[in-house]
């Protein structure tokens, strides 16, 4: 609504609350600052009450949600920091710049804790690229944006996931997570605690790009959103690289009291949050802020989201040391103001007061308690007949973009810079990075919108469970996670219901396995205003795990002399939300069930088997089911397999269900000690069986009612080259 002559996204209730709290009419600049800070994007005003359900504490958690990154204590004096950001709206209209600046933002979140960014992960969702040229264009440019930016700043992109679905045609999702490494005693907080400290703005100048970025992200997209290209920031990875070096050097010099990334909401958000956390105030001078265009108004300056800027709180008396460091790297710096004890964010031009807002008021938007409504129950669909040629179905599934190898993507990412990447993209269920302490970090991002669309509670929990399985499969113990909830317009009561249920599912499962949430993000309004179509519920989970010893690192390739193939977990009649159903044009009614206890036990015993040295390869069974999981292990190892599924632990199932059902809580393991593995699994009541062995040049699966045989070359071709054939049909 229009207040103080400016267009805002504030509601009448919010403007009334603001006037009441201040006891006066705010100025136009103040309204703009309130609007930016109280945007859904920055304030979490709708989601906060729901997110409270998530468990956020644990032995290793030093800092949970509410800071720029979560901080996990991994022992030996080291910490890992992690955070996730989305750049969905910007990427929908400028995929290259939107994706690139998404990385820029999340890297600053890691940096401002005083930790070094050591790995990037991306979870991407696009429309159906087999049908839509628009989605192909979006995808290619998002990938190029991530590659150009991530490669240049020298942070490896080590893992990710990509889902394709028609619902993302107009609203792609671009999530980037970052992992940081630092010393526990060098941690920095985004807190301005000491009056008289200096406040510096470093890095790029403040321009008109990214104006209203946060409020833009707090609305649905429409056909005329193209006009909002100016709300997308301009990426400059070279400047970012210099900022990384300069900030870390300043941090290690011990001259910083606090550090804050300037992202959504720009200076307004940075200043108010750093002051609020520190229980202080900040006074800044407009004329000290380096601006790119001379005629920028105070409003534009305070809410611009220009990239590559950091706010530093420098200890009094250390200013000259900071100047030297910034000059070394050629990074622009300006002392824009100081910390005060007034508990207000004050903006002045010379001595003229332009804005003065109480810190606590500005930084804490009034909470919105939204209504939710249960959606109508879906009509059951007729069960399809069992296909005659299951081998062909398997090849089609392997070639479907969501399942197919993402090599076309990860070849474009420098995934090795930093020389830490032990399990590289495509080699294992999660990325594994070596750490200076001798331990290793495992990290993975996961999503499953089709499950969440059918049942957000079970779906949300299943996404977290699958992500944990991926971490366990590489030999790591899950230690912390990030939640990232992406939904349509929260004013829609059914969408808000789905959001609430997804968070509840995630929270309940996290509690069951004692896994703390250390941060996350919420992105609403992923909805096309013209068609009214919202994305499917798309929570994305990031799980961090720790591998205790290098020899525990386990990859997914069936190796020579790798031994027997063993399955852990029961396969059920659960095709709802599966890739197989999607291939047939079906949805199903319910996703696979998730029994928290069974999942927990299965993960625990698989990890135990890996740590005991029994396991030569391990792979989680998820998208595409057992058939796809086995084929993936064969392709990775360059060898076939012969398995008999007649003794697979299962419900009474059809052959297609047995192959493609995406039942939770299952792993495939290769082992030279099958008896030990089977005994360990069965002792914890996990159904298990030996299925066969790897080797040969075909995939041969004996089924209760038939047999699936596929040539390894055909399997390899379907899986490995599918994305390239779709995206660059002109390549050989």
């Amino acid at each position, binding site marked *: 609504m229009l207040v103080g002559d400016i267009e805002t996204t504030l509601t009448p209730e919010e403007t009334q609350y603001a006037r009441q709290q201040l006891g006066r009419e705010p100025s136009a600049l103040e309204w703009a600052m309130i609007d930016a800070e109280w945007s859904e994007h920055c304030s979490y005003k709708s989601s906060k009450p729901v997110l409270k359900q998530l468990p956020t504490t644990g032995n290793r958690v030093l800092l949970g949600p509410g800071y720029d990154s979560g901080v996990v204590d991994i022992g030996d004096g080291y910490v890992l920091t992690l955070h996730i950001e989305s750049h969905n709206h910007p990427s929908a209209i400028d995929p290259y710049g939107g994706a690139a600046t998404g990385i820029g933002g999340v890297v600053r979140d890691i940096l401002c804790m005083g930790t070094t960014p050591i790995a990037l992960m991306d979870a991407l969702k696009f429309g159906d690229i087999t049908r839509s040229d628009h989605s192909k264009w979006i995808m290619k440019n998002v990938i190029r944006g991530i590659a150009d930016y991530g490669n*240049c700043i020298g942070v490896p992109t080590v893992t990710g996931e990509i889902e394709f679905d028609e619902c993302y045609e107009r609203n792609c999702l671009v999530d980037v997570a970052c992992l940081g490494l630092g010393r526990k005693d060098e941690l920095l907080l985004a807190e301005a605690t000491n009056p008289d400290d200096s406040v510096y703005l470093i890095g790029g100048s403040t321009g008109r790009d990214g104006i209203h970025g946060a409020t833009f992200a707090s609305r649905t997209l429409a056909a005329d959103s193209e006009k909002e290209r100016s709300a997308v920031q301009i990426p400059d990875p070279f*400047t970012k690289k210099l900022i990384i070096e300069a900030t870390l050097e300043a941090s290690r010099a011990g001259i910083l009291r606090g550090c804050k990334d300037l992202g959504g909401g720009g200076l307004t958000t940075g200043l108010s949050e750093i002051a609020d956390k520190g229980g202080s105030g900040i006074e800044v001078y407009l004329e000290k802020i380096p601006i790119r265009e001379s005629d920028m108004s105070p409003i534009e300056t305070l809410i611009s989201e220009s990239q590559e800027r950091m706010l530093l709180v420098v200890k009094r008396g250390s200013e000259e040391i900071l100047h030297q460091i910034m000059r070394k790297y050629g990074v622009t710096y300006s002392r824009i103001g100081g910390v005060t004890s007034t508990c207000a964010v004050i903006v002045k031009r010379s001595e003229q007061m332009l804005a003065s807002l109480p810190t606590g008021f500005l930084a804490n938007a009034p909470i919105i308690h939204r209504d939710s409504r249960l959606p109508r129950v879906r009509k059951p669909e007729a069960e399809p007949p069992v296909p005659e040629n299951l081998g062909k179905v398997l090849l089609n599934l392997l070639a479907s973009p969501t399942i197919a190898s993402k090599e076309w993507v990860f*070849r474009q*990412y420098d995934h090795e810079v*930093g020389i830490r990447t032990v399990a590289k993209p495509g080699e294992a269920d999660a990325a594994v990075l*070596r750490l200076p302490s001798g331990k290793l970090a495992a990290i993975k991002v996961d999503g499953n919108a089709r499950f969440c669309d059918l049942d957000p509670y079970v779906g949300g929990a299943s996404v977290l469970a699958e992500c944990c399985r991926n971490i366990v499969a590489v030999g790591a113990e899950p230690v912390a996670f990030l939640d990232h909830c992406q939904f349509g317009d929260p004013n829609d009561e059914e969408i808000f219901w789905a959001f609430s249920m997804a968070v509840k599912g995630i929270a309940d499962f996290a509690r069951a396995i004692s896994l703390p949430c250390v941060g996350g993000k919420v992105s609403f309004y992923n909805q096309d205003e013209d068609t009214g179509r919202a994305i499917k519920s798309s929570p994305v989970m990031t799980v961090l795990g720790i591998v205790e010893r290098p020899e525990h690192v386990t990859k997914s390739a069936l190796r020579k002399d790798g031994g027997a193939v063993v399955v852990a977990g029961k396969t059920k009649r659960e095709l709802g939300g599966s890739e197989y159903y999607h291939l047939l044009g079906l949805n199903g009614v319910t996703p696979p069930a998730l029994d928290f206890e069974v999942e927990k036990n299965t993960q625990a015993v698989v990890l135990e088997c890996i740590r005991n040295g029994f396991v030569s390869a391990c792979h989680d069974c998820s998208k595409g089911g057992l058939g796809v999981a086995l084929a993936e292990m064969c392709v990775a190892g360059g060898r076939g397999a012969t398995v008999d599924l007649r003794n697979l632990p299962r419900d009474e199932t059809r052959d297609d269900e047995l192959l493609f059902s995406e039942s939770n809580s299952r792993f495939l393991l290769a082992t030279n000690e099958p008896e030990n593995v089977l005994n360990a699994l069965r002792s914890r009541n996990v159904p298990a069986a030996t299925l066969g062995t790897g080797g040969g040049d075909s995939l041969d699966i004996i089924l209760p009612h038939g047999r699936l045989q596929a040539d390894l070359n055909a399997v390899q071709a379907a899986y490995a080259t599918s994305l390239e054939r779709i995206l660059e049909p002109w390549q050989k």
Partner: protein
Amino acid sequence: MKVAVIQFPGSNCDRDTVHVLKNALGLDADLVWHNEFNSGPYDAVILPGGFSFGDHLRGGIIAAHSPATETVVEIANEGRPVLGICNGFQTLIEAGLLPGALLRNTCLKFVCKWMNLQVENNNTAFTCSLKKGSKLRIPIAHNEGRFYAEEEILDRLESGERVAMRYVDDNPTGTSRGITGIVNEKGNVLGMMPHPERASDLSLGGTDGLKIFESMVEWARC
């Protein structure tokens, strides 16, 4: 021996290279900020990979015109070993120490991949402890690493034993005749696109890269 790894603004394999020299090989190595570099104490110099000066104008060209690179040219002319890796290779070409050009990959994409290489000449400062024809597995990661020169120059490089290494079975960047590493006439200056510092530990996928640095030590010894 004492090795300098020069850090330009935008270098990003600088610390990796120092780490390997120090911890995998036990060498005395310094990370040197470009405008603090002086040649005196160093027996060899490495220009690391990355995006010096953001690859603005063209990969390596701004670094090539820096005072640090002027010193590198002097060191090279004195016969001390100089290695340019990836962006460092681009810099050595732009500085005129090596011929040819490094163009954008023919696939028009960044390529990060482990490659099989063959050593074509072992009479260089960085391949002398390897046998001619021996195979190495070292990864590449670049967008602009397609070595290009006129046919006549390529012929001269081949006949003058100046091709140090080439790809064996795959050439995803479309580089001329598979060439991915060349040396100067004296053999003390090598530019290579693959990253030897990344092939420095079994857990990372192999240790063949260490042989490049070990050769440097051996060359300095004799």
